[in-house]
């Protein structure tokens, strides 16, 4: 039998990809702390200077270097743990928040539901990236002037990014719950006198948990895409460092402090025509991660659909079949 769901090849391969990436990301700075921080000032061949940073992927394999001369590949691998960890926190907070809001949505009176839906419909037209840029812009400035502590700012960023899409998701979840509560066993449970809380605890939560794994991967992908957009908007998550590049005139460049991928994109997107690989390398990391997550999500969704169809087929089989005994020849 073909393995499905959590035990399918697709899911296991994807999971091991992330385990390896995270292990490498955590272990790399411990095993060789110099690799991701050491800058190669000039590249020499004998005594001749061949190149100065930023090195192209050909001069400095596999992915070239950044403006200071650090190996981009190690830098991005070291930054992987942060971006995945951030995405994980945001996803979990977003799912829990929208589940709670969705539950509330299911049990409130009809006119409140309608007005909440109109509100959410309006909210869904505002591009999330632009809105979070405006929302976090003031705090960004405050952090720059050292009025607002940077650590608290990071927590604020994560919470804002989590909650910003929660209303839209909550209506989605709520609508599905409403559909689910029309099932026979829920209706009869209510007829037998079950309270809203009981139905929520016994029927709604298990149903959501079953679906949540699929939603989880969908939201992870959404958030990774949002990170790339925020990178373009120069909204850097998790602090920045400013390095002066000018020799006589100040030439300030911002760098992501922890090299999370979207920050690397944001810092180098303006130099795309000078050193394209610096912005494309993190985008490549994003693309691979999103592809893997999509595959994992698809594997889970397929398995859920399969169990449903298997159940339906089993039901059909159980239908009483006409046996020989039901009919007998009538002698005339």
């Amino acid at each position, binding site marked *: 039998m073909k393995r499905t769901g959590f035990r399918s090849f697709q899911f296991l391969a994807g999971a091991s990809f992330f385990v390896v990436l995270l292990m490498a990301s955590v272990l790399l700075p411990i095993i060789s702390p110099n690799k991701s921080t050491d800058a190669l000032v000039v590249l020499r061949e004998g005594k001749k200077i061949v190149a100065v940073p930023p090195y192209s992927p050909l001069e400095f394999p596999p992915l070239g270097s950044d403006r200071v001369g650090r190996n981009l590949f190690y830098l991005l691998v070291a930054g992987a743990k942060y971006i995945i960890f951030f995405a994980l926190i945001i996803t979990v907070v977003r799912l829990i928040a929208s589940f709670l809001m969705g539950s509330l949505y299911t049990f409130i009176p009809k006119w409140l539901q309608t007005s909440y839906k109109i509100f959410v*419909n309006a909210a869904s*037209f505002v591009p999330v990236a632009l*809105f979070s840029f*405006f929302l976090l812009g003031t705090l960004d400035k405050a952090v720059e002037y050292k009025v607002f502590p940077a650590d608290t700012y990071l927590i604020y960023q994560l919470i804002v990014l989590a909650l910003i899409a929660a209303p839209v998701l909550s209506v989605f979840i709520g609508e599905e719950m409403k559909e689910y509560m029309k099932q026979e066993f829920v209706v009869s449970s209510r007829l037998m006198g079950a309270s809203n809380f009981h139905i929520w605890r016994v029927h709604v939560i298990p149903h959501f948990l079953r679906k949540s794994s699929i939603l989880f991967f969908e939201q992870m992908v959404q958030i990774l895409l949002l990170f790339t957009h925020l990178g373009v908007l120069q909204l850097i998550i998790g602090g920045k460092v400013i390095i002066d590049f000018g020799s006589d005139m100040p030439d300030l460049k911002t760098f992501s402090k922890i090299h999370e991928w979207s920050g690397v994109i944001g810092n180098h997107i303006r130099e795309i025509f000078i050193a394209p690989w610096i912005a494309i390398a993190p985008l490549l990391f994003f693309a691979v991660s999103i592809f893997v997550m*999509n595959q994992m999500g698809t594997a889970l969704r397929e398995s859920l659909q399969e169990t449903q169809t298997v159940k339906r087929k089993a039901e059909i089989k159980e239908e009483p079949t006409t046996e020989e005994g039901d009919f007998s020849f009538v002698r005339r």
Partner: protein
Amino acid sequence: MKKTIQLLITFIITCGAIVFICNIPRLFNFDRSERIVKLDTSMYIQAVGETFQALSHPASMTYLTDRMKELPLFSRLFEAYLYSFELVMIAFFIAIVCACFLGYLFMVSSKLIRKIIYQLLNILDAIPDVMVIVVIQVIAISIFQKTEWMLFDIYSFGEDDRIYFFPIFCLTILPFAQLSKYLIFILRDEVEESYVEFARAKGLSVNRVIIIHVFRNVLLQLHGHARTIFLFMISNLLVMDLLMNLGGMMNFLYSYAKSMQGFSIGMIMLYIPFFLLFQLGELFVSRFRREEM
């Protein structure tokens, strides 16, 4: 008649809600001289009131340019909006037509080709929109450096320099991938319906059954998915405007709409055509369904 009034009320309330949502960033205020960040509800309410006032006579609104000149906001925003609107609409229809074509190809091709198409779509679906734009720009530049031949305009210089081909291409490709994936998904379900079998048994050709009968039903289902695609394209538009320096509305809002009034109005302007198109589509679909019954 009752339905029209209901729709009108929904429309007005939604516009109001957009204003309330778009002004939320005004809740946080950073005072540079006092060096504090404060959560200020009165400022928020004031900003909402000002926005509603500005909405009643949009011509009076102004914005500050880089050179600290005050210019009327609405006419400039409207110009940018028309340009963005053009791009989105053209891209949207090209994406739908291409997706339908691919869906047809998928249905008539062999199992191996089906698998290849599906895998390619999976890969295309995973690529971030930023990457599509950046990679094509870099490729075009390197071709230009080698051969002195520019494929197409990849970057716009200023508001009056309007480019069409490249933005439309970038705006089409990812919605196309998503639409095709969804279309193939529902097409597969649809061909297992009994009416397809019946039509084939009657002796109708495969092409006729797929193009006329199956597609008619599938397009009705696609209507519900159009909303997701449209919203996805809007967020693509933002990145594209910035990366290509287009004179579109998102670029304008990003650079000048710090007061949130322009932002609210821009979002309402985005909502209007969508509302009209969606209602029209709904009317069309419901009439279609009724005819079938």
